[in-house]
């Protein structure tokens, strides 16, 4: 029989016992829905976790430091040193790294101890410069107030605990000014006579106290992108460009001046290199190391996270499949019942010239059609279920004064995979009834009343 005639007959047969077939299809739909809902939760949680983690900058960021940087300060053990000579982490190096493929941006970590004056009271804290790109990273989602109005604004965002130190009502701080007191590094004129009789290195810098008035624009729970290479968590955040122009003396300055005559140049304690995606971190890290810098990323942690979610998804998938397995039995039952009911019809079909394969295919197509519709509606129900769970969770989170989250996610591959899976499972369920129908003896079938 031609495929179109086969499907015509299959649809006609399904329509004739519409209630029973609709209920069977509904069973498949419920099975698929539970599978889709489970997997969408798994995918959603995974996306949520990787979004949060990638927003944190931990997994797509490589932290670059000069190779001879001192150890300690809570740093992980550095990898085996390469043969390349150590290089200074200066602006030239920054530009060079920026030109590497798959690099989004390279920004220095500007981070220094300083004193903040508010209402004429001094507070010691660590200040960190935030790149403008952190605006969209999601780290500032749910903050009080606003992100910096421009990359060079004289504005500050406070970490909540620090804000609480400043005022009992942290929210009231927004819009107020504070004074940042910092040590500006001013280069001493370089000694032109390089071959001085003493042979001592020239250069160096003097440290001059300065003040900058900053407007508090926002308050954030934790410091975003704390990353690696920080000297304690920063509690006052300001635009990176503004922080850079301060030329505030940093921890590495003293070391640099002893080591080399680089006082005139801007050198960095560390650079953060953001890759386009975590998958490119590994090769990028290797390239940076081969340039003569030390580099570190948290890629391994990300790998084990992915492994965890694969196992998690698998478990959810298995639980979700249970309902589908039950639905499969429903298909077998419906089709076996249909054979009994349509025994005589099968006999007539065979008498009129239907081959065993025609009868088999007819039952197969009927099972497949139930699978197709079951899969389609199952995806729809599953999606709705996921939305309902997300909605319920967010209502709960809202009551707990927490930010809403996107708990379930139904990507297009899940839609297609669920429908294909439903069809395959239904066809498998149709195997036994179809072969039983095909083997029916037409003489017996015609005699059947």
């Amino acid at each position, binding site marked *: *029989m*031609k495929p*179109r*005639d086969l499907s*015509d*007959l299959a649809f*006609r*047969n399904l329509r*004739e016992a519409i209630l029973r077939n609709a209920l069977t299809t509904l069973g498949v739909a419920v099975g698929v829905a539970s599978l889709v809902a489970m997997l969408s939760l798994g995918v959603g949680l995974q996306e949520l976790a990787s979004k949060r983690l990638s927003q944190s900058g931990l997994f797509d960021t490589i932290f670059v430091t000069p190779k001879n940087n001192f150890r300690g300060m809570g740093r992980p053990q550095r990898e085996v040193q390469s043969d390349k000579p150590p290089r200074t982490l200066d602006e030239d190096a920054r530009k060079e790294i920026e030109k590497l493929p798959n690099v989004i941006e390279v920004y220095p970590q500007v981070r220094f101890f300083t004193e903040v004056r508010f209402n004429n009271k001094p507070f010691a804290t660590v200040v960190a410069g935030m790149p403008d790109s952190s605006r969209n990273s999601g780290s500032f989602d749910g903050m009080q107030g606003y992100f910096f109005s421009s990359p060079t604004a004289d504005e500050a965002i406070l970490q909540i605990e620090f804000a609480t130190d400043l005022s009992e009502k942290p929210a009231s701080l927004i819009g107020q000014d504070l004074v940042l007191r910092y040590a500006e590094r001013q280069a001493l004129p370089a000694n032109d006579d390089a071959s001085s009789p003493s042979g001592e290195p020239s250069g160096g810098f003097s440290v001059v106290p300065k003040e900058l008035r900053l407007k508090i624009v926002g308050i954030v729970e934790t410091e975003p992108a704390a990353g690696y290479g920080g000297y304690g968590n920063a509690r006052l955040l300001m635009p990176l460009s503004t922080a850079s122009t301060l030329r505030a003396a940093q921890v590495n300055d003293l070391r640099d001046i002893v080591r080399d005559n680089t006082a005139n140049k801007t050198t960095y304690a560390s650079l953060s290199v953001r890759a386009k995606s975590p998958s490119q971190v590994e090769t990028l890290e290797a390239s940076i190391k081969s340039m003569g810098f030390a580099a570190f990323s948290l890629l391994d942690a990300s790998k084990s996270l992915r492994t965890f979610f694969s196992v998690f998804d698998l478990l959810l998938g298995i639980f979700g499949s249970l309902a589908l397995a039950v639905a499969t039995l429903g298909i077998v039952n419906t089709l076996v019942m249909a054979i009994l009911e349509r025994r*005589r*019809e099968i*006999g*007539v*079909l*065979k*008498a*009129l*010239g*239907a*081959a*065993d*394969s*025609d009868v088999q295919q007819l039952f197969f197509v009927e099972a497949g059609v139930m699978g197709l519709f079951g899969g389609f509606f199952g995806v729809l129900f599953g999606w709705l279920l996921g939305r309902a769970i997300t909605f319920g969770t967010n209502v709960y989170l809202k009551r707990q004064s927490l930010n809403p989250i996107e708990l379930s996610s139904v990507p297009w591959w899940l839609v297609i995979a669920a429908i294909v899976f439903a069809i395959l499972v239904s066809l498998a369920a149709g195997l036994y009834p179809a072969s039983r129908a095909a083997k029916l*003896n*037409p*003489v017996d079938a*015609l005699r059947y009343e």
Partner: protein
Amino acid sequence: MPNAETAIQLEHVSRQYTMGGATIQAVNDVSLSVARNEFLALLGSSGSGKSTLLNLIAGLDRPTSGSIMAQGQNLAELTSIELARYRCNTIGMIFQSFNLLPRMTLEENIELPLRLAEVDREERPGRVREALERVRLTHRLGHRPTELSGGEQQRVAIARALVNRPKILLADEPTGNLDSATGEAILSLLRDVQRQLGMTIVMVTHERPLAERYADRLAIMGDGKLLSASEITKEAAR
């Protein structure tokens, strides 16, 4: 041996069944030849094996021993798919209980063999109409079989059997469920169709007077054996 004039040739055909440990000899060593364009009536009491013999000729069943040649094909040599094709293209069947599919309209019932024979969709409406004209039933095509009288249903069944233009028409008690007037009308129709199309008809019946009136020859069965096969003279028919 079969010649060009033979439509069906049965040689020592037997069919045994085992039922609950007992062996039943439904057809026992039957040899019979049916000529092309012949109308043969198979007579016999219930359980005489006539319907089993008809099913063997139809290719719905295979003999335990013996050979069946139909339209030059040795049925024993055909695979199950070839046998299905033989049923589809060479054989047309009608039954006592009509066996129309109740969920389909008349038109769809008649179209069914065309679907199985993979006839082009464009060609089908013409073939259905032609078959219906032959049985003189061209109205109520959209109706379902249960909405028709027994005689009309049997006409539809005949149209369905004719739609693939078979060479052999096999009828299993076609008048069994009909009153005598309608039964006669159906046999008269079969006779007309046979003459118009030049078909071979084998009809199983237990109504001897009707068979004598319409068939060319009677074959009488009893206990699975062929008791006699005789030509019907015009005198006998009257």
